[in-house]
Each structure stands twice: as structure tokens, then as C-alpha cells.
């Protein structure tokens, strides 16, 4: 929960090459950093007075991560008013993430959006006007991380976490039903039946953690949505990018009814493409769901490619789309340059300054499109750090869950009564359900009633 405990985050932009800094704040900041840091000099970090730095190496369980300069600030003389440590190392995203993770492994929690500044305010380190600015910041960052969390929810990892969590809820629900309804005839729960189920969930969590660590989840890249009204050639463009038949291409409007994903490389730039259902008012239920997802996707991604049919005048759906996209990182793509031009290009470029004309069918204009995408990404703030933040928070939640399950297994193996085991299961569920936006007690109670015939 906010405001106690020690938090950590990467506090510099995640760009390759520069110096990177990780900031820790809270009562254990110095102790945590001390366990990670091997100083070159004779004095460990915990012996340093405030406002001092030391040179040395940061390390984790697997060995040395990087050279680092570490600064120690002692409460209340620090940015947040708490004990603060700043670890500066060689800035590569991979090394920074590994160092950050080492901090989490030693007991730090991922910082919430704007949390350092919040703590500074709460410790009286800032005046009223600054506090107002911080509220703005937190609220904006909250929206940003909400947007990213929404994007992450469509990912395979998130869905796997969801699956595993469901299984854990089922176990906890069985335990709860068995405890709260001792006299109903239901399948008996014993340590022998419970242990393999708990072990299996824990193994699944460990696999997810490994997946994070192997970097599968940190594929850098820009989430990109291709949007436009039906039949403007979105699927053709998608296929052009990805080089293979992925979306179904026909000329019946409304053929693409779901979000199709593909990662493509444009020079050194990786785009995570999502081709979405054509955006229009529709009475078809399945298609309407597709349209909802397209709009959701449009809100949650870092880049939008808006497609318009150059061979037709702009329709009301096009105009609505233009309004929605105003001010977002976006390239307007006018397709079908192979056909005579009808669309009002002036109107489009008024709302979306970055505009190119292509023929997806004849593969013309792709070079211009790539240049326009680069322009947008240079000008607009794409914040890969925010994406990492979301991922790190997920990972920390999974790790907390795994740790609690390990204790649950221990309790089972030692022959503790099941109420003690239940405490560990709850503790594992809490962070996992937090990712799904639920509370453990509510989810378990719900489970009891949906799967067990209990009560009189």
C-alpha cells in the first residue's frame, strides 16, 4: 500500500547509451541498496553519512550487474524526506531492469505513478503550489498507466496470469466452502489432495517469472493500431507490413471482427501492429464487439495509423474518427492512390498533420509511410519506461504470489492445520487479484457460491 515500505523505480528515461538511475525511498532504502552494492572502498553503504556517494558494483543472485555510483541521502534531508538511495549505472534498459529487479528481490516495492513526489509532499518537502502540480502529475500518470494496463491485458502473459489466478481462486474457494460449510457433503480436502494443486499453481507462477526474466515480455516496440472505417484497406496494409496473409481480406465491409496482432520491423523500429475491425455504427452484435475492441485498442496504444479511402469522399464515420484522433500520436494514411482521388485531404491534414498517400494494393508509398511514422514518434512522447513500469509491477505481483505459495507448501508439508495454509493462499491471491482489479475475499466468496451446492 502507499506510503510505507520502501519503493524503487527507474528514474531516468529508458534510452540506450545514457546514464541510468534507480531511486529507492523508504525506511529500508539504505539496507536494500547495501545488500546489492559491493563498494570499491572500505565502507559499506550503511556506514555512509547523508549526501555521500560511493563507487563500486551492483550485483544480484547471479553475479555482478554493472559498475555503479551510489548516492545516499538520510531522512529528512532528501527529496522525499525519507532515506533515499540513488544507484547510477550504465543506463542500458536491460541492466537497469536487472538492477531494479534486484531491488525488488531485496524487499522494495515498485513505485506507484508519482509516488516519490507524493512522499515528498506528505513529508512537507514541497509547498502548496507544488502539491497541486503533483496531483496533476499523479492523475495524468495514473491515466497513462491505466491505459498501459489496459493494453497489457490483451497480452498472452496477462491471460496466463489470469488463468493461474483462477485456479488459485478455485482452490481457495474449495477450502472456504469446506470450512464455512463443514456439514455439507462435498469433496473432502486434505493436505494430500491440496498439496499437488498448490504445487502446480506455484510451478505455473515460476514459469511466468522465467518468461519475464528471459525478456520475452520486454520486447521493446511501439504498440500500433490500424484504424479506419470498413473496407478502406486496413487488412491489406497489415498484410503488407507483416508479409503474410494474416487478416482476412475481402471486400464485404466488416470482415475483420477482432483485433489481429503482429510485430513487424521497420528498419530498427519494431511496431506491434493491431489490425482492428472497421469503425462504424453496426447492428451486428459480433461486429459491434469488434468495434468496441478497436476503440479500446485505439485508446491504449502508442501509435495510431488512421486509414482513409482516397477514392471516396469523407463519410460521417471518417469525420468522427478524425475528431477522436486529434492530438494523438497518429499518421493519416490515404489509401487507394491507384484510384482517382475524391477525399478532402486538406480536412484530414488539418486534424492530423502527418499525412501520407499510399496504394496498399500496388505497394506504393511505403517509404513515405515509414518516414511519417518516424516523424510522429520523434515528435510525440512515446514512453517505453511506462510500459516497463507496468510490466515490473506485474512481475512483482507474481513474485509475491509465488513467495506466499512457497510458504503455503511449507505449512502443508509441516502438517499445519488448513486455516494456516489458507492464510498463505489468501496472501498469494491478494497481489494476483490486484492485477485483475479484484479483492481476494470477494473473489473467494463468489467462488464458493458459484461452484458448491451449500447452505440450507
Amino acid at each position, binding site marked *: *500500500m*502507499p*506510503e*510505507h515500505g520502501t519503493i524503487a523505480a527507474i528514474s531516468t528515461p529508458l534510452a540506450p547509451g545514457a546514464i541510468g538511475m534507480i531511486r529507492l525511498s523508504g525506511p529500508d532504502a539504505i539496507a536494500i541498496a547495501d545488500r546489492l552494492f559491493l563498494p570499491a572502498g572500505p565502507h559499506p553503504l550503511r556506514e555512509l553519512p547523508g549526501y555521500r556517494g560511493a563507487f563500486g558494483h551492483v550485483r544480484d543472485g547471479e553475479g555482478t550487474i554493472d559498475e555503479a555510483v551510489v548516492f545516499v541521502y538520510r531522512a529528512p534531508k532528501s527529496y522525499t524526506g525519507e532515506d533515499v538511495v540513488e544507484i547510477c549505472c550504465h543506463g542500458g534498459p536491460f541492466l537497469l531492469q536487472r538492477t531494479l529487479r534486484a531491488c525488488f528481490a531485496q524487499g522494495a516495492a515498485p513505485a*506507484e*505513478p*508519482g*509516488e516519490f513526489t*507524493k512522499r515528498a*509532499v*506528505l513529508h512537507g518537502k514541497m*509547498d*502548496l503550489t507544488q*502539491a*497541486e502540480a*503533483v*496531483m*496533476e502529475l*499523479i*492523475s495524468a*500518470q*495514473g*491515466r497513462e*498507466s*491505466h491505459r498501459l494496463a489496459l493494453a497489457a491485458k490483451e497480452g498472452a502473459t496477462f491471460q496466463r496470469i489470469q488463468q493461474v489466478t483462477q485456479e488459485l481462486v478455485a482452490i*481457495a474457494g474449495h477450502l*472456504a466452502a*469446506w*470450512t*464455512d*460449510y*463443514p*456439514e*455439507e*457433503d462435498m469433496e473432502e480436502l486434505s493436505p494430500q489432495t491440496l498439496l499437488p494443486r498448490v504445487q502446480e499453481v506455484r510451478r505455473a507462477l515460476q514459469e511466468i517469472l522465467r518468461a519475464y526474466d528471459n525478456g520475452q515480455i520486454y520486447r521493446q516496440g511501439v504498440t500500433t493500431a490500424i484504424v479506419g472505417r470498413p473496407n478502406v484497406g486496413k487488412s491489406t496494409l497489415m498484410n503488407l507490413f507483416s508479409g503474410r496473409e494474416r487478416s482476412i481480406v475481402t471486400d464485404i465491409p466488416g470482415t475483420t471482427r477482432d483485433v489481429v496482432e503482429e510485430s513487424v520491423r521497420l528498419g530498427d523500429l519494431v511496431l506491434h501492429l493491431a489490425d482492428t475491425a472497421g469503425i462504424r455504427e453496426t447492428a451486428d452484435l459480433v461486429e459491434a464487439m469488434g468495434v468496441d475492441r478497436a476503440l479500446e485498442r485505439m485508446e491504449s496504444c502508442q501509435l495510431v495509423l488512421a486509414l482513409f479511402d482516397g477514392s471516396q469522399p469523407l463519410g460521417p464515420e471518417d469525420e468522427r474518427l478524425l475528431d477522436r484522433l486529434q492530438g494523438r500520436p497518429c499518421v493519416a494514411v490515404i489509401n487507394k492512390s491507384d484510384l482517382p482521388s475524391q477525399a478532402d485531404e486538406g480536412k484530414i491534414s488539418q486534424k492530423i498533420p502527418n499525412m501520407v498517400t499510399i496504394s496498399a494494393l500496388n505497394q506504393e508509398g511505403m517509404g513515405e509511410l515509414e518516414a511519417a511514422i518516424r516523424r510522429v514518434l520523434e515528435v510525440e512522447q512515446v514512453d517505453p519506461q511506462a510500459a516497463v513500469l507496468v510490466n515490473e509491477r506485474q512481475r512483482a505481483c507474481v513474485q509475491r504470489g509465488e513467495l506466499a505459495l512457497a510458504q503455503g507448501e511449507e*505449512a502443508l508439508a*509441516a*502438517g*499445519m*492445520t*488448513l*486455516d*494456516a495454509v*489458507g*492464510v498463505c493462499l*489468501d*496472501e498469494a491471491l491478494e497481489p494476483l487479484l490486484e492485477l485483475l*482489479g479484484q*479483492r*481476494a*475475499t*470477494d473473489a*473467494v*466468496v463468489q467462488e*464458493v*457460491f458459484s461452484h458448491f*451446492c*451449500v*447452505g*440450507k
Partner: protein
Amino acid sequence: MEYLAQAYDVAVVGAGHAGIEAALAAARLGVRTVLFTISLDSIGNMPCNPSIGGTAKGHLVREIDALGGEMGRAADAVFLQSRMLNRGKGPAVHSLRVQADRAQYHLYMKEQVENQENLDVKQAEIVDLRLDGQGRVQSVVTSLGAVYPVKAAILATGTYLRGKIFVGESVQESGPDGAHPAKALSAALERLGVPLRRFKTGTPARVSRRSLDFSKLERQDGEEPITPFSFETDPTGLKNQVSCYIAYTNGRTHQVIRENLHRSPLFGGAIEGVGPRYCPSIEDKVVRFPDKPRHQIFVEPMGLYTQEMYLSGMSSSLPEEVQLALYRTIDGFEHLEIMRNAYAIEYDCVDPLALRATLEFKEIPGLYGAGQFNGTSGYEEAAAQGLLAGINAARQVRGQEPVVLERSSSYLGTLVDDLVTKGCSDPYRMMTSRSEYRLVLRQDNADARLTPLGYEIGLISQERYDRFLQKQAEIDRELRRVQSTTIPVSETLNALLVSRGTSPVAAGLKMADLIRRPQISYGDLAPFDPGRPALSAAVTEEVEIQIKYEGYIKKQLAQVSLMHRLEARALPEELDYRAIDGLRLEAREKLEQVRPRNIGQASRVSGVSPADINVLLIYLEQRGQHQGKEQG
């Protein structure tokens, strides 16, 4: 015609389990109290199962007792059979339950309220509630026109409010057990802006003991030695007096039900009220779990001086003749005779989001709600809320600060927090799984958790408090002794350890370290512990649990102290959440509706994210600085 009747400090509307505790608590705290009931013969009635306690509910009864309420003592006085459920599953979920004599329970409670100083009991139907110019409760009005001026009123109307009973196609306006319903009060409440809604619940048939063939049923006896509910009841000499029995439905039973589903108002759509998930009718069970070959029925005696038996698990709203047909398909029930038919009952209750954690209405000062009226179900849930509402009404009259119980203090606190923070979409039943602090909130330590507060409030006598302090001192002393006493290694000790499946020791070990092993109990070590003092079972049980579960208890206590810090950050009542720009829209609306009293409660409101909580914290800080400046 109206007339002005006597003035009271507190009026309690309804003399069920909530109303009784409310009235007794208020009167015992020294305020002039009047308790209204539609029938004096229904005081403390148990219109459903003749039992008190059970999982989590047993915890509530012990908490009521620890705070100075009546239910525990009443159950001890009139119980017929007692069992501690979940014995093998760990101390957090040990749950006491008794079968009680329904008629005796009523008489016990009637006697208590009638003889209570400061309390008058009156048979009357309350039809109106009036407020003064400031919107405060001013008076309650009976159907015969008596206007009683009051300073506070507690609504504990149970299932009486616009009660409607369904049996097949038959629909009748009625309270429980054929009582007269309260038809007029709902309209008065609606005029005052109280958000009412319809819930429903049901009860099975009562059948004649003489018509059952017990040779075909499984017998279930009580357990001895008996643990009483009340920390004040002396357990010596308590005895079980009756047996319960178990029967099972079968395929033929389910067939009768399926063939007649269209005659059930539950499935025909005649009932609009929302029923409890945890208390399904037999037709619900058969429809929702079609693969289950049989369902259990507990056959429980209603009392010592009656032939009525309660069929737990068989609540139904099917027509009477269908009920008879389906019951008679069951082994042992071939000649069963129904004495009271099963029915579903629908009633008005309030959306508890309209209440504060004190159980006072947010918008109507001086008006409190308790029990089924607040959307719960169960005698114990009702009694617990009644006690809290009674305490707070009396304290308000006396100009004292209200009492609010945090979740981490008790199941009662959890119950109330759930109600006023999350609301409820179906009748709310207490369950151990609703508490995140189960290992701390045990039934055995309810006194340690709540008796000091009961004493402070004034419901626990000095004499009882002294006994409580003595017990706690004994526990502490014995804990220290067990932690510091070494048991020397010996062949007999190792023989015991090995026989229990745990490893032998090479050297002497602290007694506490041996007790920490799940296989070894405090009692096991008596032969190796010559210095052991004579202590009550309640004391040694406490010592054993505190040692055995120390690690897990510490884990939960850490969570408790974390939550305390959030709960210490009060949210001003007049806060306008709509004007806090940083909050997401959903959070603003939810917070505006719930109006949490502190940051901890706000964090439990659904739809409020951690980012919203941070925004609130900053906002509070900023507001504090503003006010500091204005004052300075």
C-alpha cells in the same frame, strides 16, 4: 386520532434478535428505552432453524458476549445440543453451534427485556417516523395513534416490512411464522428518502417427530465436554439433551421437484426479491446442481416440549401438496406429516450504503438500522448489529463519541464494514472467508479483542472485567513459562515424538519449540512438565494457539498494522469528491456514494484504484496546509 404518549430517549422497532440486543444495550447504558413489537409472543422468535452459532456466526455470538450482549448467555441457558464444528481444521475456523429450544429461547429473552431497568416493552405496530425541522428523528407513531417523542430510533424490522409469503400459487401478506406484517412503515420511510428494496428468504417445513422413521436416519449427537458461548458461563455440568438426524434426498425427490418447478413462485417469476446465494431452496439446489445425486437434510428438534422437527436444507416455496409429496420420497419420511409448511418470504430492507459504520443513517441523524433490515440474514448477524446500533444510539443521546469497529477487530467490524462499504446485492451471511484476518479473529480470543472495549463502553461490569484481566494475566504468565522452560531429553520424550510422526531430539528443548510442532500438543507434554500450574482449559488453549500459530499470527498482525495506518487517515465528512480533479470519474461517483470515513475504507470501495488513493492523500495534505494557513 393521535395522542401524545410518553417520551423516551431511544425507540427500538422490532423485538427480534437485533431489536433485543439494541434495546438491552441502550437501556443498560442508562438511557430511557422503549421496545416495540407487533406481538409480545414473538419476542426473540426463531422463525427459521432452531440453532445459534455455526461457522463465523459462532464467532459473532462470542463477540456479542465479549462486548456485553445477551445472545451468548441466552444460547447457553436454553441449548439442547452443542458441537464445536471444524475441530480438525485449525483454531481460526473452530465454530461453536448449538441447537436451541425455540420456545425457551423466546421466554428467556422476553424475561430479560421485561425485567431490564430503563426498558419498557410494548406491543404496537409502528406506522410512521417523524423528523424535526433539522431532519433529526423526533417521534415514532403507532397504528393506534400514539405519538412517542424520541431522541433516537433503531429500525430492526426483520422480515416484517411489507412481508409477503409465497407457497406455490398462494401469496399472502404476512410476517414470519404467520405473524401480522408491518404494512405502513415502508411508505413512511420512503417519504423520508430511505432507499428500500426487496429481498427474499425461505424456510423449510416443520414436521411431526411422531411421523418419522428414525431407524432409517443417521443419528448425530452433540459433543462433550461442552464449550459454552459466554465467557461467563461455567462449563461444568452442561449436558447435551437431544440428538439430531441426517436424511438424504434421492432421484425420486428431484423428479417431483422438477415436475413441479412451474408451480414454484421462485421460478415462475412471482417473487421479485433477491434471495440469498448461501441459503438456496431445495428447488434451487436441484436446478443449479443437476448432477448431484442427493442433498443432505438435517432433522433438528425444535424444543423439548414439542414434536416439531426442523428439516434443515429443505427450504421451498412449492405448493403444500408438492412439499408433502417430495418429502415423502425420502427414506424415513414415508409417513411424514407437515405441521408448518415451508415458505418463501419477501420483505423490504434498506440499501446499507445509506448507513454509516455506526449504523446511523447518513442523511437522517438519530435513525439507526440493524439486522435483516440492513440486508443481512441470520440471527447472529442481526444480534451483532443490534448491539452496535443500541450502543451508538445510547451514546448519541448521552453526547458521547460513536463506537466504530474496524475490520481487524472483529467479525462484527468486518460485517458492518462490508455492508457500508460494498453494500450487498443479496442477503449477507457472515463467513470466515469474508475476513482477511481469520487467524487473529478467533472465537477463542473474542474476549481479548473486545471485552476491554465493552468495559469502556459500560456493558461489562467491573467484576467481570477483573476476571477477564486475571485470565489474560494467567495466559501471559504461562506463555512466558512455556517459552523459558526446557524439557530435558529422555527416552520417553523421544518415544512420544516418534510415535506422533515427528523427529526425536538429541538435547533438551524449550517447551514452546515442541508445542510449535503440529504433531505435539500442550497436553501431550504434561508428563514432562512437573512445574505445570493448574489452569483452565480456556487459558491453556490460548497459550497453545499463540505458540503454535505464532508465525502466521504475526503475518496477519503485520497486515493489520498496515491497514491501521490507512485507517488513521480520516476523510472529512463534508469532502466534495466531485470537485477533486485528479480522481477518475468512477472513483468520484463511488466515493461520493459511500463517503468513507478514512483512507483505509476508501481503498476497499470497488472502483477506487491505488492512484485514486494517492490523489486523495495529496488532496488531504494540501487541504491541511490550506487550513493551517487560514488559522495561522
